């Protein structure tokens, strides 16, 4: 049999799926290699569980192909796939004891009884549940049920184990020890594990590779180190670990301007004078005297965290978080230095900064100084300006002209919050409506993956007539 270079076991090609008119997975491609521990990481509603269910055979994509060991397996039911799942809620059979739960899959394979007994006993020992054979599953603790679920999947000896947030229901301490245990089991059994979680720390701890997803697309695939040190965009940087994400301008190769200062970095190929997002991890900032620093700021807050102090420094209007073993006094002015290697430059998530609408005026009132236009099927009234009906106008709305309507009545009713990234001064929020994306800034925290009404403040907008009315 021909094998691809890296022994790909599962391959998702151009997977697209919609539920109730909502795009869940937007043309994703993913290759998973043999014996790999891959984690699919993302906020809730990003499509990670759906991806797992497609591999498991519980969901069929609307378009795109699923390959298993080189064979297309679209349409193959779950019971015919060489894959087993550890479900989020364990889904242990309540009418069976521990032994029978674990033996369930083997019995279906018509394995001889003594062999089943041997395998189950062995597997229960692997997951540290020796002697629990006769217990009712309802009498087990969460962690024990979890291990039964893992044993039940592993004992079937599948090529791949799928794990759907299996540690979500456990308390922190148990979760930590189970993380290590899972990794150990994976190494012992030499199986491919595909793990879904929204917990970035879990992903970094266990995985060989991490797949970061948001809003139905894969943002980045890489080793935990890659994802942490070289995030491709502000979403990934914000989602993984703590980060100072700042707006910057790439002056030229290896020269970036942030907070009015030009700094040296190591990234190239962004062009000249390109707006970029810049990530500096809190632990990469060195505290110096004000004179020696590349940047200057005033300490406004300092918290002792055990290993380090976490300080919040105001650099002009922008807040920067520093983690350091050195403590700077609150109120003092300090300098900050970052070595070029630790300044990570990323492309902006959206290709625009101002939101531009081109529309035709449908109705207007000179006396009230308003006009109306259609946007995505809704009539929007803009106050403070008058244009004759039929005029084509280009409206430029800066991010601060957008707001989420608190009273529930917005210009656009249901807009999806795709990401919220704190940029030191404000949150930068990316929204998605039916036809396009929007960028807005806000001082309040908004919940990602929810639907909100969006309002426009036309007093902050600028207008340009593209095409005046032609009289018929």
């Amino acid at each position, binding site marked *: 049999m021909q094998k691809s270079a890296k022994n790909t076991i599962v391959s998702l090609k151009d997977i697209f799926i919609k539920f109730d008119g909502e795009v869940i997975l937007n043309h994703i491609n993913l290759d998973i290699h043999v014996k790999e521990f891959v984690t699919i990481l993302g906020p809730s509603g990003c499509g990670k569980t759906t991806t797992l269910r497609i591999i498991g055979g519980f969901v069929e994509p609307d378009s795109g192909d699923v390959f298993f060991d080189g064979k297309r397996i679209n349409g193959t039911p*779950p*019971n015919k796939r060489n894959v087993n*799942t550890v479900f989020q809620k364990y889904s242990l059979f309540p009418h069976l004891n521990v032994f029978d739960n674990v033996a*369930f899959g083997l019995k*279906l394979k018509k394995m001889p009884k003594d062999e089943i007994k041997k395998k189950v006993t062995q597997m229960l020992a692997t997951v540290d549940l020796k002697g629990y054979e006769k217990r009712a599953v309802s009498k087990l603790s969460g962690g024990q049920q979890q291990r039964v679920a893992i044993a*039940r999947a592993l004992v079937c000896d599948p090529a791949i184990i799928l794990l759907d947030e299996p540690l979500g229901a456990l308390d922190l301490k148990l979760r930590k020890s189970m993380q290590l245990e899972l990794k150990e089991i994976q190494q012992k059994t030499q199986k491919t594990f595909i793990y879904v979680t929204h917990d970035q720390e879990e992903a970094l701890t266990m995985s060989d590779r991490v797949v970061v997803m948001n809003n139905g697309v894969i943002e980045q695939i890489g080793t935990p180190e890659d994802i942490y040190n070289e995030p491709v965009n502000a979403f990934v940087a914000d989602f993984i670990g703590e980060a100072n994400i700042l707006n910057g301008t790439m002056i030229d190769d290896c020269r970036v301007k942030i907070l009015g200062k030009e700094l040296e970095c190591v990234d190239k190929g962004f062009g000249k004078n390109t707006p970029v997002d810049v990530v500096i991890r809190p632990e990469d900032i060195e505290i110096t005297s004000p004179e020696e620093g590349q940047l200057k700021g005033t300490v406004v807050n300092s918290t002792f965290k055990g290993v380090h102090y976490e300080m919040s420094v105001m650099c002009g209007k922008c807040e920067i978080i520093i983690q350091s073993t050195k403590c700077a006094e609150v109120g003092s002015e300090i300098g900050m230095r970052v070595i070029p290697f630790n300044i990570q430059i990323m492309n902006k998530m959206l290709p625009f900064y101002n939101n531009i609408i081109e529309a035709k005026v449908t109705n207007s009132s000179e006396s009230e100084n308003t006009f109306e236009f259609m946007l995505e099927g809704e009539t929007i009234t803009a106050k403070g300006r008058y244009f004759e009906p039929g005029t084509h106008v280009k409206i430029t709305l800066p991010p601060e002209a957008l707001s989420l309507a608190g009273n529930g009545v917005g210009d656009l009713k249901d807009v999806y919050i795709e990401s919220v990234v704190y940029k030191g001064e404000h949150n930068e929020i990316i929204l998605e409506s039916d036809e396009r994306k929007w960028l807005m800034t806000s001082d309040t925290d908004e919940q990602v993956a929810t639907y909100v009404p969006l309002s426009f403040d036309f007093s902050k907008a600028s207008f340009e007539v593209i095409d005046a009315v032609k009289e018929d």
Partner: protein
Amino acid sequence: MKSRKPSIPYIIWMVIFTMIPIVMIGYTAFTDKNGNFSLVSFSKAFQYTDVFLKSLWIALLSTAICLFISYPFAYMITRMKASSQNTVIMLMMIPMWMNFLLRIYAWVTLLQNNGPIDMALSLLGINGTYIGNFSAVVLGMVYEYLPFMVLPIYTVMSKIDPGLIEAAQDLGSNNYSIFKNVLLPLSVPGIISGITMVFVPSASTFLVAQYLGGPNDIMIGDIIDKIFWTDQNTGSAISLILMILIFIFLIIMNLFGDEEAIA
């Protein structure tokens, strides 16, 4: 210790309306008309052994048919949309709001000679009598008690976590094995309470056989109904025997499932 005071009214209720009547039935069964100890009532009761057996047979058969119809039906309901589920359950309940006797009369009208069913079948060239026989009794019983089988099975089935079915599929189950290894064992409590709720009342029911059955299709409930007017002692003895038979039945059912399902 928790206060028992709130349960006092219920205890009083049970003593007056459950314990005392049972004791009275027992007393009447073991005495003669003059109040002396006697087993004559029992020897009279055993004259009706055939009717006992027939009643149990009708009850058993009706229960089996109810189960056979209800199980797939209940499963189908659980697969419907929530709104359709409510509608179907509602439709099943509505006839139960109608008086029991009226429903039996309805069947008499339907099945009688020159009734709608007879007429329709005659047009197709099929002639026959559809009332006054054993099958008509069983039909009436199944009709009466079907909802009592469907509802508990449906309730238990709708509570089965769909995740368990996915888990079974994931572990290699095809549809048959999902049914055999997951669905069926998990719906046993519903089946047991369904069987209990159909078998117990149908074993002691009366009037159905009188209206729909022939001269030989008489059930023990009808005997008790008749005999009590003239001979309370024998009536009590028959009731007591029936109670014991049902009790034995419940014990047997108990061996198959949880205690909660029976109660």
